[in-house]
């Protein structure tokens, strides 16, 4: 498989963010929560505080780095949940067909029809704000796309010779799904997941806007950005850096997904002689 420029750009951005998140405790100059000194609030970027400080007097650079942890957790875990639900339902529905498939398709349609932001809002209202609830809310709301993709992939893979062969060789349904179908549809699922990660990061920001985001004082880009919107004139740096971080991360995930899709798509593959 050959990857294009977009893929590598996306992979680099994503890797950067992942490293920032993992290394935050070592590379961040301050503590993200307790190093708050109101005497230092809203300082513009300088030698000590490279990205300036926020309204609480906390270092924006530190919080942006730590924010990567939360945002990545949100992106990755919620997509894991999504993919798990979507793949399980989609694959079994597509494979077994019948009433189960009808049920899965129906449920998928319902989930598509209920606006996801509102569904997430409701789930959060039930569970109360906080990271675990957020992960569940975002994880429960966006699986319908994955499910559709998984289902149609399964339908087309099901008729492939090797799946038939597996049946004839005596493989059970579960074994066929896990060893024959799942590995072969990971491509599109992965693409969906990477694209979904970007939108999960954004959804977190949107939910912060409504006041249901991450539990403070843990830094998340979404809540940093939301809190900073009042300060856009007074202290623009508080918004700029987490905003940039979100932008680059979502861009990274999207380019990664696009790149993956392009290299999986036979049309886009340049044939080598």
């Amino acid at each position: 498989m050959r990857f294009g420029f977009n893929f590598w750009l996306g992979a680099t951005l994503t890797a950067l963010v992942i490293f920032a998140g993992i290394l935050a405790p070592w590379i961040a100059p301050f503590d993200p929560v307790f190093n708050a000194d109101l005497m230092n609030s809203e300082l513009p970027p300088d030698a000590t505080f490279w990205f300036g400080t926020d309204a609480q007097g906390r270092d924006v650079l530190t919080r942006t780095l730590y924010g990567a942890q939360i945002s990545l957790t949100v992106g990755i875990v919620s997509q894991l949940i999504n993919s798990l639900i979507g793949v399980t339902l989609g694959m079994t529905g597509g494979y077994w067909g019948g009433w189960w498939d009808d049920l899965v398709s129906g449920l998928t349609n319902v989930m598509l029809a209920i606006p996801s932001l509102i569904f997430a809002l409701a789930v959060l209202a039930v569970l109360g704000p906080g990271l675990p609830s957020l992960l569940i809310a975002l994880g429960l709301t966006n699986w319908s796309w994955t499910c559709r993709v998984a289902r149609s992939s399964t339908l087309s893979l099901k008729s492939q010779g090797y799946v038939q062969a597996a049946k004839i060789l005596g493989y059970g349904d579960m074994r066929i799904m896990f060893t024959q179908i799942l590995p072969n549809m990971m491509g599109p699922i992965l693409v969906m997941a990477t694209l979904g990660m970007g939108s999960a990061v954004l959804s977190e920001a949107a939910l912060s806007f409504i006041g249901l985001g991450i539990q403070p004082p843990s830094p998340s880009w979404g809540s940093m950005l939301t809190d900073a919107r009042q300060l856009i004139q007074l202290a623009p740096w508080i918004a700029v850096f987490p905003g940039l971080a979100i932008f680059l991360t979502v861009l990274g995930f999207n380019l990664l997904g696009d790149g993956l899709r392009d290299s999986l798509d036979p049309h886009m593959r340049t044939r080598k002689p």
Partner: protein
Amino acid sequence: SGEHYGGTLIFTAPYGSNFATLDEQASPNTQEELIAQAIHRALYSWDSTQNKPVLELAASEDVSSDGNVHTYHLRKNAIFHNGKPLTADDIVYSYKRIANPKNAFPGASYIAVIQGANEYIAGKSPDISGLKKIDENTLEITYTGPIDPGFSLMQNTTAIYPSNVKDESSFATHPVGLGPFVFKAHVPGSQVVVEKFDKYYKEGKPYLDHINIVLMAEDATRDVAFRNKEIDVSILGPTHYEIYQKDPALKDHLLEVAEVYTRGIGLNPALKPFQDKRVRQAINYAINTPLIVQRLIKNKAYPATGWLPLSSPAFDKNKAPYAFDPAKAKALLTEAGYPDGFEFEVTASPNESWGVPIVEAILPMLKKVGITVKPKPVESTVLGDQVTTNNFQSFLWSIPSGPDPLSAMRCFYSKTPQSACNFTSYASSEFDKLFEAAEQERDPSKQSDLLREANNLVQDDAPYWFFNYNKAVMAYQPWVHGLVPDANELAIQPYDQIWIDEIAPASRK
């Protein structure tokens, strides 16, 4: 003094993106009061110059010697927008409607000051015994005690409606009142337009032809719209307060008032450390309150010295607030047996001046004396729910503490149920004695002295971390005149006194 007639005022409603109903009697929220203030009038009203309730719909009143019975001589020139003149029947009708158990209106608790109202509210009596029509223009009301009924009956939720409207549900869409402006249009989710009422009972008023009350919940949007001169007034949040103060074009047109809200963290004695007064005091000592007010709230608040706010008649100007003294806090904690501190949860809403951001700011301060704070963010709705059901370790809230100091202090009276504003389940026999004395005292200044003493007692006992009293700030366009600093709620302005001058842009004319 140069008042101009005519023009349109574009006022903003900042408390949501919706007017839930135009039936003011059915609404407990400030948002709808913004309309009620234009359309409706209640028996009393708040006089912000005298800082007390005054008669509005009655020309005069006679009070019985025991102070329980008031006889009102109603205004003869007051006419409803539908042409009906005001009579005693309208008041009886309105109060019965508010208290009607079928309706379950929030204003019922204000009507409860009238004798027999509780029986009526409970559905045990077909009438409110304390309400007696003498003649068309005279009404006698018997109250449950020698209280000042003005504090209750000036509320917008006790607005007087005409008794001749057949379809009561129409009040929700086509309100009819006695106010200076007539309801004209409601674009749900967008705005309410009212128009000058020619037969308003106050001579020569109102000045304006129209008021558009536009919904605008988002601060940032309001800021842009205000600078863009699309709206005439804007309620400011802390950051915009600071920005506007620095902006030479805007800084001269800011209206500030100390509002009667006290903010702070209520400590639940159910949590063991909070049973010790020294721990509660330690918390007050450990937090640098003025710094938070200055840096985080941008001085859009006054550091609290106790429960009663600045504009309260019983406010003690000489009382010093808790000093910022971490060493003392540490010592007190050690004394109380918590040398290594302890951990507690603060239930708080997302509000920027009395919500989670404040908890984030005190978090490192309390950490320094060894106390670990964990914010527990909840929605505003849920906050109210959890506080009134005593379901918290501590909570950060903004609680009305005026204008009537007596009812404000009632919140610490041990007989006040927890759910009814004694949120920290405060019980002190010393306090109870002072409060009961104040309740009996008919001389306002002596009553104030007693209440002041009670307030200082509460401050010393520290059932709360006393944070601040709100400073409400309103920015207005230079062409707007007649705004008043109302300590109850700055956003509620006497529309009938407002006028705009000739420098107003064409769109306002």
